[in-house]
């Protein structure tokens, strides 16, 4: 593995860490399981791609637009979660994912199945970001996202939002505003995923509908759960592990997916709260 290749993997890991952290806000803190997170990711990426390619908008504006639009979409998709609960919500989020991808694929404005190509290199403070530059740049955003997660974790504990996850009705009855917190969580989460979308679009230089399919949502959720829901370090560990794992398993080419699936199953069976979760082996190792 060359250094450039490793740096590219670091960039991907950073982007997926941000996605897992953003899902953590909805799932880990607000307790709303979403299997459609790639939809926000895709909306962010397409916003940046369209603005950059079709309208020649500069980098910072595309970033701002991605974050805002994904945040607003998050707000609107958060509203149904007030009405649709539990497993129904899981399915509604899967549905949203499929509908969004179908729109990308079948509406010409979004470039159809061939996507949007020719996104220029990100230019920040007069510097064109190379592979190394982008790895550093995404790391900075990862740090910001982590701090945001820590902050939300604090707010969330202070106002008793943990109750929302455990038992919504009970939380409501002791005066916790469940609706407000859910909307808040969905909006911030959407905005963060939009940021990840912007980074993805500029890293790849092109976007395709299938980059944001249901299977990507599954990966994001798996990263989060594997690392440890409701923690800040867990999602990052999960994202890095699941990005590097297939590369590390490359030497057994033919059994790669098999092993990948098996590792997910085994970790979940024996570490149900995640590697860095409440009873995770890694958490215990660090504490010692």
């Amino acid at each position, binding site marked *: 593995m060359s250094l450039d290749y490793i740096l590219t993997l670091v960039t991907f890991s950073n982007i997926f860490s941000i996605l897992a952290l953003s899902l953590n806000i909805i799932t880990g803190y607000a307790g709303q399981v979403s299997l459609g997170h790639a939809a926000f990711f895709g909306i962010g990426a397409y916003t940046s791609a369209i603005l950059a390619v079709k309208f020649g908008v500069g980098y910072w504006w595309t970033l701002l637009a991605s974050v805002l639009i994904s945040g607003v979409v998050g707000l609107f998709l958060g509203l149904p979660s007030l009405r649709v609960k539990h*497993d129904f919500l899981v399915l509604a989020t899967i549905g949203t994912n499929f*509908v969004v991808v179908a729109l990308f694929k079948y509406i010409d404005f979004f470039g159809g199945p061939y996507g949007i190509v020719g996104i220029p290199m990100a230019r920040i403070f007069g510097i064109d970001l190379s592979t190394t530059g982008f790895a550093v740049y995404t790391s900075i955003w990862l740090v910001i996202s982590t701090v945001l997660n820590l902050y939300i974790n604090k707010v969330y504990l202070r106002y008793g939002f943990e109750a929302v996850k455990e038992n919504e009705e009970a939380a409501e009855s002791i005066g916790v505003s469940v609706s407000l917190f859910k909307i808040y969580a969905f909006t911030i989460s959407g905005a963060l995923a939009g940021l990840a979308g912007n980074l993805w679009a500029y890293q790849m230089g092109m976007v395709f509908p299938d980059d944001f399919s249901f299977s990507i949502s599954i990966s994001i959720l*798996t990263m989060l759960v594997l690392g440890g829901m409701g923690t800040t370090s867990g999602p990052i560990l999960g994202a890095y592990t699941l990005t590097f794992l297939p590369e590390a398993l490359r030497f057994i080419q033919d059994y790669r997916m*098999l092993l990948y699936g098996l590792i997910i199953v085994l970790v979940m069976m024996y570490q149900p709260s995640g590697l860095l979760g409440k009873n995770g082996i890694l958490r215990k190792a660090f504490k010692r």
Partner: protein
Amino acid sequence: MQDIVNALVLGSIYVLISVGLTLVYGILKILHIAHAGIYTLGAFLGLMFYHLTGNFWLALFLSIILTGIAGIGVYRYFYKRVLEESRIVPLVISIGLFIVMQDLYRLIWSPYRQPFAVSFGIGDIRLKGIVITEHQVIILIVTFVSLLSMYFLMNHTKLGLAMRACAEDMAIAGTLGVDVEKTISVAFFLGSALAALAGILVGVYENNVYPTMGEVPSYKSFVVIVLGGFGSLYGAVLAGFILAFTETILVAWKGFVLPRDAIAFLVMITVLMIKPEGLFRRATR
């Protein structure tokens, strides 16, 4: 008219897959994505036994039994120990299992599409320009018979009563003397057997069996059970047919550009917005 026949056949397939899934969901409340992997297993085993024995019905029988046992295995070795955990844990295990299964099939039976050509020797039925192929006839009959037996089993046997009791409240059913462990196993066996049946019928109907054939059913069947109200057998049956007809109508309507899957989900989201607990909420709750 031809559309109606096609929609009926499509609906039958949705129903067969979803009723099995509903049985499992009704009792354990697990989003059992790996059900689609079980469905694929059924199709492959059916094809294998068909090649070995040359008798379709024997192959069907053997595959259903073995796939049912595999279903019990999934429960015993994977789900059982995490039932007390957060509901997301069995969901992720199920996703992992589905990935593992698909890859195992690819390694065992090759990644290529394999034909599953069976002739039943009853010929196609033609009525005033409508053609019902013999495969469609078989699917309709098999679905009808299976649903009828399921109805009988659920409503007129002790086993069915035990399953309904467990779906209602497992702990109470246990204290009342229901063998919960056995009942869950039976539900997994039946659910997986129905999935195998669906897998074989689809394989024959499309003359195609391949490792990733479970991908579309993995989420489509959930759309059906969501519409049906999660855990209601009658709901799943009705929802399966309603979905098939809606899809067929909207696809036939030229102005609609979105593909079938997106339509299914649009229907589901619309319904959920209006009725957050599905079309046919379980009567007893």
